[in-house]
């Protein structure tokens, strides 16, 4: 027993475990020292947590697009970050049109619905077009080929929008109903953050219900299991894939509106970093898995927001927030060492292997 166990361990395993252990020790030691220092009070930690959750909600909705497409095509849609940028950027101009009409603060709910509709429709159509033009002709090509077209499409979209709207910054107008904060059980939460968290959860549940409960969701799941058999069963594979892109695109567009509520500046490059983070979140949660994307995104948001203060302040590292991405990705490495298929990825990967 012991011998077989010893034979199975390779040098790589040991190195990986040492790295994992080092990360764990650093995290625990740093956190303990920070808490002992007492530089931040409970309210500060709560503020950081809420900021992290709001950010995580946005990541979650973008991550959905990656996960849905991966689930069905086994392909990373790297142009998804531009799908995320296109809708909200266009919606910003709609918002200014609504302001000049005088509707923005007079009919805030209606205006918000219009802006959300514009964002969802634009993002969704771009996602569908992307699939039709850049991915469908290459569906039978080797796996790396659509990956390259995805990157090409990403640049194409970025610079198209730069050409359309210019390379400057466009401020997203604030709405009076989102100004100020709420007190929830004695905790101060900004209305924008509350909206982002609740909005992300609601949209997530709707999407999950679509995938699990509806007919089209059933079709999506069966295409993801086996395209050929699904086609034999009378499922229109092309249509199902297009629907998947449309759904992921709409989620990204709506995520963009939540993003603009939190960080109200639109520009042509705004998709890149959130897209990268959302992709990370999807991998962290187990790519191809919808609840996993949500969990991974929330975790990543929290790590980015709380991590630098918690882990590094106690170690006496100056300017900790400079390292927030390093921390988030270190923890990602840590989790992937022990769970290579992501937090919720295992069951699914085995089923599809």
């Amino acid at each position, binding site marked *: 027993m012991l011998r077989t166990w010893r034979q199975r361990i390779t040098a790589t395993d040991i190195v990986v475990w040492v790295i994992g252990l080092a990360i764990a020790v650093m995290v625990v030691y740093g956190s303990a020292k920070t808490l002992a220092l007492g530089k931040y009070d409970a309210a500060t930690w709560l503020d950081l947590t809420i900021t*992290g959750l709001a950010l995580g909600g946005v990541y979650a909705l973008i991550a959905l697009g990656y996960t849905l497409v991966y689930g069905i095509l086994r392909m990373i849609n790297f142009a998804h970050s531009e799908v995320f940028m296109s809708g909200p950027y266009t919606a910003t101009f709609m918002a200014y049109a609504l302001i000049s009409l005088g509707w923005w603060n007079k009919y805030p709910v209606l205006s918000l619905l219009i802006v959300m509709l514009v964002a969802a429709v634009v993002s969704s159509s771009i996602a569908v077009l992307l699939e039709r033009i850049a991915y469908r002709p290459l569906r039978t090509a080797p796996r790396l080929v659509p990956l390259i077209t995805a990157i090409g499409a990403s640049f194409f979209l970025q610079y198209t929008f730069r050409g359309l709207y210019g*390379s400057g*910054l466009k401020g997203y107008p604030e709405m009076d109903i989102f100004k100020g904060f709420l007190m929830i059980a004695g905790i101060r939460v900004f209305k924008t953050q509350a909206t982002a968290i609740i909005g992300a959860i609601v949209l997530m549940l709707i999407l999950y219900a679509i995938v699990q409960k509806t007919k089209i969701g059933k079709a999506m799941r069966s295409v993801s299991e086996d395209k050929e058999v699904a086609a034999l069963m009378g499922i229109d594979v092309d249509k199902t894939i297009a629907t998947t892109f449309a759904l992921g695109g709409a989620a990204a567009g709506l995520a963009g509106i939540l993003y603009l509520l939190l*960080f109200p500046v639109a520009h042509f490059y705004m998709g890149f970093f959130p897209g990268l983070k959302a992709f990370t979140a999807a991998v962290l949660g187990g790519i191809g898995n919808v609840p996993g994307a949500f969990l991974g995104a929330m975790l990543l948001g929290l790590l980015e927001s709380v991590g*630098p*203060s918690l882990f590094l302040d106690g170690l006496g590292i100056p*300017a900790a*927030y400079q390292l927030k991405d390093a921390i988030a990705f270190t923890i990602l490495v840590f989790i992937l060492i022990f769970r290579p298929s992501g937090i919720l990825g295992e069951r699914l990967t085995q089923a599809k292997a």
Partner: protein
Amino acid sequence: MTKRLLVLLSVLLAVSMLLPACGPAPYECTDPIGCVTVAPGEPIHLAYAMVISGPDETLGIDSRNGLDVAVALKGKVLGHDIQLTGEDDGCSAEGGQAAGTKLAADPTIVAVFGTSCSSAARVAVPLMSQAGFVIISSSNTAPDLTEAGNPNNHPGYLRTAHNDKVQGAAAAKFAFEKMGVKKAATIHDGSLYAEKLQAVFADTFKQLGGTITTQEAVDPNATDFKSVLTSIAAGAPEFIYYPIFVKAGSLITRQAKEVPGLENVYLMGADGMFSPDVAEGAGEAVEGLFVSSPDTAAFTADYQSVFLPKYKELAGTDPISIFHAHAYDAMNMVIAAIEKVAVQDKDGTLHIPRQALRDAMYGTKDFPGLTGNLTCTPTGDCADPKIAVYEYHAGQYPPERIWP
């Protein structure tokens, strides 16, 4: 023997005196780092390396407009047109590397205007210095670029922008003396410019008797600054100084108002945030934001009467950033130096010795520019620095000058 030699010498002397009369002697370049030859009818090739795309583009485009104005007002130089080409420095080390490599490969270039950003300068300047160019920046402000003995100081590099030793100290004085604050925090974005500037600010502020609560750093491409601001709020500063660039600067301005504990702190940026894009990006939150910047009120009268109308005619807008006048002065300094050192053949061919041109640039003394009387130090600081503080008001550009 001696007699014969004497005869030979005198004959040689006579011949050599006659030679120029018979025909033009070919110009021989004796300059240690080479000469640029401009054939008759050909333009003098000058180049720029400035940030002309992306979120920080207003900084570079504005300076380039300043160069265009100078060229348009000057017309021909020694009978030659001026040709201005350029590369994008991207306001980053990577962009500087690309721009510097490309420009350094072109031996027809006499001088380069740039870079826009100090981070780009750090990698682009050594490349272009090797190529023998005169490099003159209108907006690099990081102190080490002109510090004697510093590895980032290279031969041939000069600037018409102020040194941040001046700007950072002015900002600290403004905070401590004018606003009466005792506790300040700083944020930089890891760029050479911002890091040095906040360091000078912090040092001066401490010398004046204030306390620095936190010195944080952020990623210039990030969008979420709420966490870092929340952690800064724990130190309860009364003043936050973040001398960074447009994109991150406007986001921080906006998010600071939403962080508990920071609702009433004073916010201040530097000249990199003197741009209409900041007013646009920060929205209503821009109200009350301070920026330090070259004092346009101290510019000469020509700025209003000659420069601005021409700028508007060529660019179609009012200035979109703050270093256009510095670029204009840089162009005129280079033209003056070329006129001083260039050797012109009868047929109009122009020879510009590179080292002599550099020496002429460093020797600039009391040059009447728009930004003041410019005298260059041996390491290339040519500015006549006058810094003022401006305050933004929502829906209004340019910001209002409030100090000194």
